[in-house]
């Protein structure tokens, strides 16, 4: 009887739910589907004037149309099209047809005939152009259908003779996008058809309208992009277009020439008005170089950009781009670069220039001077001096790319790059410094060049200085004077901008390790006899002294004779620095000293494997957990967690993996502990207080799972499942605890409902991974799902409790690459005793400088939190521009945080820390049904939160009361 009754209740329950769902679904259908075409039809019939009809159409276009109803809508639109007299309405209809045919899931071949049909009868040029656009949309939607493509190409060819440029434009666009690429047809026919399209388009290179000429070139480029091989004959046509009157034509022509030069680099073309012949790529290079001094800056940018990717050009032409013959009053003059080089090689560097130092030398043969070089002469000289910084940046980029592929060119362009360090626009300066860094493998800086480079160290922009430090890290210096110069300038920089400390130390580290032999002769001077450091024992806290030591110690690493030059205190300082700044100071083999470090260095390589093994073994051991008694399991987990943590500390490469697994095990441990609580055996009313531990455990597991999910980079889907599973268990635990502690069923009812929903979501999201979760909590739960759905909350809780106890511990597969996100706040350092004073109610800006490691998408996730002593917390979102990306996986946050508070009587400390914010819906793999653009139910359940991931830094502040 009872069973029967229950069944009835449940039946009713399920019935209600289903009905609701059905209702919603039908409502939706009724609302949307018929309304589209029918309503449109009615509207259009109602429309009394063209303006009205246009309004209706505009309104209609705002709403999306489902794939099923597209055809109906199209029919109605076409019907109105035939009736319509007003061209603007026809235009709108034509554009709507194009939009509709793009709808996914709709095959537009059925409307093509109609479209072509109305095209034949159309008179208005604008509508014609729009219809051709529609045909283009249809054609691109059906890339496989050869017949349709052929037909469309035919249509396009017919309308090519139209008088309106718009129509011709669209025709050419159509040809470019759909021009034949048959595979089914025999080879000969294909060849014929292709040539045809190219020839047709090529004929319009000489159209009277510049817009059509541009469109023709663009169509040609489009053909190329679609994989059609362009003919070499186009080259000559394109060359003629370079002298076109219109900039957009020239710009497109430059592109076309570039494309052809990449296709036929080695073919030979004749030089006009002479018998010589050169390679096509060289000729094209010369022509594009000429365009670098075009009248329009758009063309100049285009040309300068393309130059960079012409790597096949012969070196003779390449080097011409930097060549500029100087002349003064008809006498040959040397460039400043040549003079500098000469001075340098003759050994009298840095003499002041005298009047007439640059006096021209030999007479120039007037006949031989060529003022307009046809070829590549001086293209970059012009490009780098251009009026528009866009052109200059493009030229610098091109220089960079060309120099990377040609070491000899790299050597030559050095002077010019160095000159760009003094550009008036910071972006250009920065770009040229980066460029220099990229090609630094190919070059060695001369002393005079180094001098110019180092002069930029005084720049007030931090970005420039840091880029320069990076550059110095990887430059080759030729002489010991160069090293000395660099060191002196870096120290000057250090005194002027103390915040650059870390960057300068790092720079000196590389400078030292790259040039040990050059540093060696400098050591005595640097350590004792240098005027800056002539005290008996220099101050160990002096950043400048540390900088010198970093340089020397890194050089000493590969130069065993160097330590002999050290004095006693140097050794002492070495030991200190090796400890305190171990990332900057390498292990040295010092005479007469047994250092642990010497043993460490070789061991790093050999120990790697065992530690990996150890990790594996300890993890495997844990997975036998199932078979142990609860007490033993707990102990095993505790030990393993401890081991893993220690391993992570010792082996930085394995830190990510170790931490990750340790966190997981900690969750498991908490779960086991919570389930071990006595509270489960006691009657409900008695354990009200004791339940703290279990609920705390549940809460902590939740937190840890969020950390696991969002704080590690490289987490794969496999892990996400396990993490979510653990979270689900925690939620189950929470539910059970609440069920036990609260009386009355009302809140419980909701919670149960919610939990079951979550199980449902879990199942849906991870449906593919479910087979891997054998015997797990969820697996069992899903088996019981029909029963759970029909049970009362109390029943559900009971089932959950037993499944939770019985469920197996899941194996966490280790991801290949996993790194924990971490952050270090460099500034504020938190050491200052001087409070930051400001008037209460006003703001004070606090500079925050932090490095972030392994943070994905820091612009969106990293926040700064300020905690005031009164518990008030403030969250600050740094601007995206405040993040720099100095290397892969590394980010740097340099921002300002504004603090404000009411007046205090005493100075007090505020805490500044970095937070990682997360959004739980971000990680969930998207199911296809979610992409429909509907509001997903996920949004409600997505949880946003933050994880602190840096050590808090204390800042002493003192808001003073305002003086009146």
């Amino acid at each position, binding site marked *: 009887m009872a069973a029967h009754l229950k069944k009835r209740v449940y039946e009713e329950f399920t019935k209600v739910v289903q009905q609701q769902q059905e209702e919603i679904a039908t409502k939706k259908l009724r609302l949307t589907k018929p309304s589209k075409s029918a309503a449109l039809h009615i509207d259009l019939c109602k429309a009394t004037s063209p303006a009205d009809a246009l309004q209706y159409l505009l309104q209609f276009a705002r709403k999306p149309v489902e794939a099923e109803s597209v055809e109906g809508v199209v029919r109605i639109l076409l019907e109105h099209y035939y009736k319509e007299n007003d061209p603007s309405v026809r235009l709108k209809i034509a554009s709507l047809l194009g939009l509709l045919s793009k709808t996914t899931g709709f095959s537009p071949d059925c409307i093509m005939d109609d479209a072509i049909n109305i095209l034949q009868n159309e008179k208005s040029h604008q509508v014609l152009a729009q219809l051709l656009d529609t045909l283009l949309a249809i054609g691109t939607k059906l890339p496989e259908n050869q017949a349709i493509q052929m037909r469309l190409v035919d249509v396009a060819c017919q309308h090519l003779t139209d008088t309106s440029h718009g129509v011709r434009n669209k025709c050419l666009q159509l040809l470019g996008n759909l021009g034949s690429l048959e595979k089914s047809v025999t080879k000969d026919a294909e060849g014929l058809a292709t040539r045809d399209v190219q020839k047709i388009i090529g004929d319009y290179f000489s159209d009277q309208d510049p817009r059509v000429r541009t469109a023709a070139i663009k169509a040609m480029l489009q053909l190329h992009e679609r994989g059609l091989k362009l003919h070499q004959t186009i080259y000559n046509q394109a060359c003629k277009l370079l002298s076109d009157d219109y900039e957009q034509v020239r710009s497109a022509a430059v592109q076309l020439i570039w494309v052809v030069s990449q296709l036929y680099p080695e073919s030979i073309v004749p030089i006009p008005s002479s018998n010589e012949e050169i390679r096509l790529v060289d000729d094209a290079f010369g022509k594009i170089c000429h365009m670098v001094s075009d009248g329009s800056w758009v063309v100049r940018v285009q040309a300068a950009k393309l130059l960079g990717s012409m790597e096949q050009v012969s070196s003779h032409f390449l080097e011409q781009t930097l060549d500029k013959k100087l*002349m003064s009053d008809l006498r040959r003059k040397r*460039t*400043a670069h040549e003079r500098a080089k000469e001075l340098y090689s003759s050994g009298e560097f840095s003499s002041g220039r005298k009047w007439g130092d640059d006096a021209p030398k030999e007479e120039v043969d007037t006949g031989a*001077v060529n*003022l*307009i070089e046809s070829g590549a002469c001086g293209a970059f000289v012009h490009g780098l001096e251009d009026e528009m910084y866009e052109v200059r940046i493009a030229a610098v980029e091109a220089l960079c790319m060309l120099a990377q592929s040609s070491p000899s060119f790299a050597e030559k362009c050095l002077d010019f790059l160095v000159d760009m360090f003094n550009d008036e626009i910071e972006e250009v300066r920065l770009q040229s410094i980066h460029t220099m860094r990229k090609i630094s493998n190919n070059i060695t800086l001369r002393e005079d060049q180094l001098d110019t480079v180092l*002069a930029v160290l005084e720049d007030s922009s931090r970005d420039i200085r840091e880029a320069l430090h990076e550059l110095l890290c990887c430059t080759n210096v030729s002489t010991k004077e160069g090293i000395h110069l660099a060191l002196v300038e870096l120290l000057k920089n250090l005194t002027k901008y103390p915040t650059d400390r870390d960057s300068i130390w790092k720079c000196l580290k590389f400078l030292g390790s790259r040039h040990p032999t050059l540093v060696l002769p400098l050591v005595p001077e640097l350590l004792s006899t240098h005027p800056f450091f002539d005290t008996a024992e220099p101050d160990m806290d002096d950043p400048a002294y540390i900088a010198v030591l970093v340089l020397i110690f890194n050089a000493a690493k590969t130069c065993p004779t160097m330590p002999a030059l050290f004095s006693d205190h140097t050794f002492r300082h070495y030991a200190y620095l090796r400890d305190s700044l171990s990332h900057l100071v390498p292990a040295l083999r010092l005479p007469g000293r047994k250092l642990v470090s010497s043993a460490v260095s070789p061991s790093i390589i050999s120990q790697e494997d065992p530690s990996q093994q150890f990790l594996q073994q300890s993890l495997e051991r844990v997975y036998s957990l199932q078979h142990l008694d609860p007490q033993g399991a707990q102990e095993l987990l505790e030990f393993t967690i401890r081991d893993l943590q220690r391993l992570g500390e010792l082996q930085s490469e394995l830190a990510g993996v170790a931490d990750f697994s340790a966190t997981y095990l900690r969750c498991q441990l908490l779960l086991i502990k919570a389930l071990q609580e006595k509270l489960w055996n006691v009657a409900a009313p008695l354990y009200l207080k004791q339940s703290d531990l279990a609920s705390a455990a549940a809460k902590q597991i939740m937190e840890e799972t969020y950390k696991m999910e969002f704080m590690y980079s490289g987490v794969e889907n496999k892990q996400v499942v396990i993490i979510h599973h653990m979270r689900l268990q925690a939620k189950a635990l929470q539910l059970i605890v609440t069920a036990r502690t609260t009386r009355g069923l009302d809140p419980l009812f909701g919670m149960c409902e919610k939990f079951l929903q979550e199980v449902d979501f879990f199942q849906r999201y991870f449906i593919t991974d479910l087979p891997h979760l054998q015997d797990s909590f969820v697996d069992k739960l899903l088996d019981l799902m029909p029963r759970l759905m029909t049970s009362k909350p109390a029943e559900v809780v009971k089932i959950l409790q037993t499944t939770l106890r019985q469920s197996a511990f899941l194996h966490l597969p280790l991801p290949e690459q996993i790194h924990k996100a971490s952050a270090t706040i460099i500034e504020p350092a938190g050491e200052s005793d001087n409070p930051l004073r400001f008037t209460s109610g006003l703001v004070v800006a606090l500079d925050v400088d932090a490095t972030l490691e392994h943070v994905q998408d820091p612009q969106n996730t990293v926040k700064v939190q300020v905690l005031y002593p009164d518990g008030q917390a403030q969250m600050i979102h740094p601007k995206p521009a405040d993040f720099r990306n100095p290397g892969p996986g590394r980010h740097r946050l340099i921002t300002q945080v504004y603090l404000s508070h009411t007046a205090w009587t005493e100075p007090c400390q505020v805490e500044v820390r970095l937070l990682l914010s997360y959004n739980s819906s971000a990680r969930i793999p998207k199911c296809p049904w979610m992409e429909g653009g509907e509001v997903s139910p996920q949004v409600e359940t997505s949880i946003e939160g933050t994880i602190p991931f840096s050590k808090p830094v204390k800042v002493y502040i003192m808001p003073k009361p305002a003086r009146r």
Partner: protein
Amino acid sequence: MPEIRVTPLGAGQDVGRSCILVSIAGKNVMLDCGMHMGFNDDRRFPDFSYITQNGRLTDFLDCVIISHFHLDHCGALPYFSEMVGYDGPIYMTHPTQAICPILLEDYRKIAVDKKGEANFFTSQMIKDCMKKVVAVHLHQTVQVDDELEIKAYYAGHVLGAAMFQIKVGSESVVYTGDYNMTPDRHLGAAWIDKCRPNLLITESTYATTIRDSKRCRERDFLKKVHETVEHGGKVLIPVFALGRAQELCILLETFWERMNLKVPIYFSTGLTEKANHYYKLFIPWTNQKIRKTFVQRNMFEFKHIKAFDRAFADNPGPMVVFATPGMLHAGQSLQIFRKWAGNEKNMVIMPGYCVQGTVGHKILSGQRKLEMEGRQVLEVKMQVEYMSFSAHADAKGIMQLVGQAEPENVLLVHGEAKKMEFLKQKIEQELRVSCYMPANGETVTLPTSLSIPVGISLGLLKREMAQGLLPEAKKPRLLHGTLIMKDSNFRLVSSEQALKELGLAEHQLRFTCRVHLHDTRKEQETALRVYSHLKSILKEHCVQHLPDGSVTVESILIQAAAPSEDPGTKVLLVSWTYQDEELGSFLTSLLKKGLPQAPS
């Protein structure tokens, strides 16, 4: 034959006193009205009596155009307009209009107050002269009168410098004034579109020079100043008030800003302050960087550069001072130079050319002991540097501009004859453009081909376009139509429309021709043979055999008839209209050759 005549009154094979007369299509234009630095007598101004001996100048000149505010381009303007007498319009750009009177006033002061000249223009005259000025914007087309129009292009060189295009009908002349093709710290580069003028009049100051990159120069300059200042020395930079001075100021100012330097920079006051004010105002005339950043901060509002006071020269510690005049021949720059010359830590940088005889020239040529007035001997221990910052286009730049504008002829002014010769040769050789270089007073006459615009009716044009299969731009094409000349304008219309407009009836003009053929067969058969023969030859024409026995080719009628006297010959009657003349004559010649022997 229409022609353009150009006569330089100044600046012909010479630098200074720019003044060029151009007559184009009956309009007379004077380009620039400058004075010569080298003379103090009548030769300093152009000889305006060349234009007219006794009539009023206004009657002979349609307008005067001033390219920029340098005195060798505008110095004679008040003399010309007020003393000689000219009341027509004077065109210049806004910045030139603003700065020009300051310089003229300064020039007047020196000439009258210092040198005590009489018969010189007065302040009032400058004011009156400036009232006749019409200011123009860049790229604005100004109608001087119904036919003459002028348009200004950006020229670099100094603030407000412009190139002018003068256009009457289809003839045009471009005058460049002074221009610079490489951008500098405060101005952009000259730019012109492909306007294809009949004549380009260009300056050629640096006709035989190809200059090095400006970056090296700037870097050298900054390095020297920085080093000297770092070692506690003082730097003196003698400049003229306008133009280069502003560039150097910007250069130093930005460098100070970038390098975070604190050493004071001073600028000796005078007319500079007024001029600087205008520099702040005319931001659209400056370069990209200044234009982009002036919203945040106007680059001419110098943060590090302060006004100089006489007493500052004795202050201890490093400093940088800009002082006028530029050649160290007098004034404040010389006073400061005297004070600082004895210390080898100090430095003087000469940013431009110095005329022989000035202190500047002496020290640049290496003289270390200078005799000052009062038989004092000044020993120069300070370092002396020379930096050339010039804002004229070099040979390459001139060629580049000529290439951009694509003129039919080039005329060189504002340069030395010897140097011009070289450039002239190069232009003729490499650009294949004829080039002229008249001396002062010499007239160059250029014949121009007169082009007469003819309006064509749209219907005719469309009909012709429909016939042509492929569009071929820029190629001459044959077109049938009727030219109507009415009220001195020309129209090309279709013949039907012409007839309609003129109220004439159309006359049919038909040609007929008889062709004798030896053929013994009947007329019908002959016609048939003619038909098949023509059909086989004229494939693209429509050949028809009509039931009445005649043959038509398009609209040409061919009838065969048998003359009674000779049965062996047949006469073919060929008739065609005037419009089908071509085809008709072809047909007759074809038929005259006879029919091929028919296979019997």
